[in-house]
């Protein structure tokens, strides 16, 4: 389902990153651990096709996304990969509902408000459906961004330090939600973090 093989990325001749090979089966949940600056975010960008590797291949759903380009790659990413960012960002001009339905249409899927409502209810933020984003707390925003990553039921969910900005209580809650929802949608989940609070909760860990 997700497989990386001989992956390297060069920022410059001095900064060359080499990533260990690994693969995840469908529905599997894993952690990528490493200290700041070891290339965690770079790996995540390589996995989602935002960056092109200098060598090696990234396979998602048996497609080598390192070879894809242009609109085809954008489309594939939108439909198959959901990303939860460290700091949640949204289109500020839109409401929660509009942000999520935009995510559906940008991925080439039809608008489905019922699905949006169900997701928000699962994440405990159903009352925020018509709120503007700037009216929400950080914790609420992070839940909405999880909802956004899940709204197209992607094959792969990538989360970049999803808990580092949260306190212990919210950290546990958010992690639980992500894992539950990934399971519910039968999505493969890969969390990139240096947050040691998560360490013991995953069987599969990849160290950079």
């Amino acid at each position, binding site marked *: 389902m997700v497989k990386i093989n001989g992956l390297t990325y060069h920022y410059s001749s001095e900064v060359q990153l080499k990533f260990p090979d690994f693969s995840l089966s469908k529905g599997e949940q894993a952690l990528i651990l490493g200290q700041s600056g070891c290339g965690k975010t770079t790996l995540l960008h390589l996995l989602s096709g935002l960056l092109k590797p200098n060598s090696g291949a990234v396979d998602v759903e048996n497609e080598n996304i390192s070879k894809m380009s242009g609109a085809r790659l954008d489309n594939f990413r939108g*439909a198959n990969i959901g990303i939860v960012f460290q700091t949640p960002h949204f289109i500020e*001009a839109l409401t929660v509902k509009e942000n999520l339905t935009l995510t559906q249409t940008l991925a080439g899927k039809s608008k489905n408000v019922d699905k949006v409502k169900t997701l928000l209810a699962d994440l405990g933020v159903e009352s925020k459906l018509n709120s503007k984003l700037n009216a929400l707390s950080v914790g609420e925003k992070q839940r909405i961004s999880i909802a956004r990553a899940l709204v197209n039921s992607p094959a792969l969910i990538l989360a970049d330090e999803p808990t580092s900005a949260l306190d212990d209580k919210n950290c546990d809650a958010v992690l639980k939600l992500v894992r539950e929802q990934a399971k519910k949608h039968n999505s493969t989940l890969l969390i990139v973090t240096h947050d040691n609070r998560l360490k013991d909760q995953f069987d599969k860990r990849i160290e950079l």
Partner: protein
Amino acid sequence: MNILRLSWKNIMSKPLPSLLSMLLLAVGLSTAIILKLTEHQLTENINNTGKDVKLVVGAKGSRLQLVLSSVFQIDNPTGNINYGFYSLLKRNRMIKEMIPVSMGDSYKRKRIVGTNQDYIRLFSGKLKEGVLFEKPLEANIGSVVASELGLKVGDEFVGGHGMEEVLHSHDEYKYKVVGVLQRNGSVLDNLILTPVQTVWIMHAGHGGDSEYTLGAGDKSMHAPEEVLEDSLSQIAKEHKHEHHHHNHHDHGEVNLDSLLANIDPKDREITSILFPNLSGNAKIGVLNNANNQPNMMAVDPAPEIMLLKNKLTPFVSIIIAISWFISIIAMFSVFIGLLNSLRGRKYEIALMRVLGASKAKVLVSILFEGVILSVLGFLLCLVLSHSGMELIGSWMQNEYQYEFTGWIFLSSEFTYLLVAIAIGLVSALIPAYKAYNTDISETLSK
């Protein structure tokens, strides 16, 4: 949620900068449209009013002034000529139609024109109520005169000497409204029309031409004696005829006919003569005849109007330049507005790409923002320009005898929609290209 709606929402989320851009664009385009509307209506009025008058004969002076005063009712008359010349030409069978025009009096700032019924036909006037004037002191009034001054058939009023300010009123005789004309957008709407004889009666006993001469103060002229002799006897005959004709109508205390008959032919004056349907030899004949008189001239209105239009061209060019200038500033305003808004939305652009939007889609969404702003600016401009025109129109009506309205729409206005869209597109080009080239990975890593 499609891209167009997203662009719309992005604009609406920043109402003030968006409004500023729209307003600038609207003001720039409005200037151009108001100019177009004015030009259109002015040209239409000039053409409608001037097209049927082939020649004007009046007192020597400014040629343009004679045309403006006698045909367009804008300027002051150049002076007066003797009615004898009119009577003389009347006997020329080559001249089919001629209309005397006598000006100088007014009632509440509305011009009183002494003429004949042909004048009403010249401007395709039709009666709304009442009958056409026939006898002295009878008057037909234009629709604007009727509505503004509240006059109706049967009303009487006292006219005054002078066209802007009444120097003294002719209170011995009253005008009587016998007919109201339909509104037709011509000079008739703003005029009070009466037989030429009314003017003579009003001025009888006021000492003739020195009192009557207006504006430039030209001395009224008298045709040379030898030309006049014939025509004077002709007038005398005409008036005898009128005397008999009207005698049984008059029951009033004043016998107008005997009064008229007592007016010295030298005091029978008119301002000018209009010649519709005059061409070829007849036109040349009148031209020569009039220009040979010491204090008379004949003017073809068409070249004079052309000259006037040419004189206006530089002013029109300046206004066009100003409207372009404002539009270009508007373009920069849209450009800077978009650039500013995008700077804050860099992350959002990257986000759209992560969510599956292609580079092209992002490009289009920004171009849409420029186009939406410009279309809204155009709509605002329609409101501004037409209500502005209506406002200017009511002011201009006091200056000219024409009505300008803001409630007409020209098909050429839609060219300005295209101009607006072009401005929107051009100003969005660079911001859109920047968004197109956003480095997603780098933006998201910050």
